[in-house]
């Protein structure tokens, strides 16, 4: 099963990279953009056919390593 995981900064956490990209887009003429936030996308092949077991494992991987839950949140899809 493939886990597709998105890790993003929680709302309210300052994202200077997002801001820098926003300004760059603006200077390229895209004047109507706002709230650019940068996150991470990861794919993990999990050798598990039971969907609920894979889900529990994916959540554990996110909580333990893939996201720092002090400032990041995560969501995932299993397929």
């Amino acid at each position: 099963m493939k886990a597709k995981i998105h890790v993003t900064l929680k709302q309210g956490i300052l994202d200077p990279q997002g801001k820098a990209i926003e300004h760059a887009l603006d200077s390229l003429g895209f004047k109507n953009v706002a709230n650019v936030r940068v996150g991470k996308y990861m794919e993990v092949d999990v050798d598990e056919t039971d969907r609920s077991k894979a889900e529990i494992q994916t959540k554990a991987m996110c909580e333990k390593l893939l996201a720092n839950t002090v400032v990041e949140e995560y969501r995932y899809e299993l397929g």
Partner: protein
Amino acid sequence: MKIGVVVFPGSNCDHDCQHVVQDVLGQTVEMVWHKQTLPSGLDAVLLPGGFSYGDYLRTGAIARFSPVMAGVKEFANQGGLVMGICNGFQILLEAGLLPGVMLRNTSLNFICKDVYVKVENAATRFTNRCQSGQVLKIPIAHADGNYYTDPVTLGGIKANAQVIFRYCTTEGKVTSEANPNGSLDNIAGIMNAGGNVLGMMPHPERCAEVLLGNDAGRLIFLSMFESLDTSRVPVA
């Protein structure tokens, strides 16, 4: 006194730590590779600066799970003296031995320069050789030194005198101009509630001998040794 310096793949300030503790201050150093079990009989543990695991995923995120860290956690939980410098501080945060996280510097730049920090609490095992309010010039070299924690935790560590160093002007004023990286409340270094674990972003091991033009960092190492055994502290 025997000081352990942990070496992760990508650590690059381990030799500077060894040089200061051993050659400048005359104590015994044991370099500890991250896959080893932490040796017994250490008086203190240093987690040096660098780029452990290339800062992959998040700085310090992978190093915190290195085999040696089980021993470091145990040592800290037993009250052992632990200091994390720069990447070492980041690893202590990820390992949960200190509260909070490090974010990317607000400027997005890697900043490598001397800064001034104010000693907010001189009654600690890491600052007892300093005066309260003393200003120290110590270099920083980091891209992820923007300390953050939630308001409740921040209130707690401030009330409990766990904020040890804050970025300041040469006169000791804590201002936003003096903050190189956007760090919350100008925080440059904090201590755990137990007072035995310190994390600091500036590099005291880069300014511990007069020959290099600045020996402010020496005070922190001397404070640590003082807190371990007064009779064995080298003459300042």
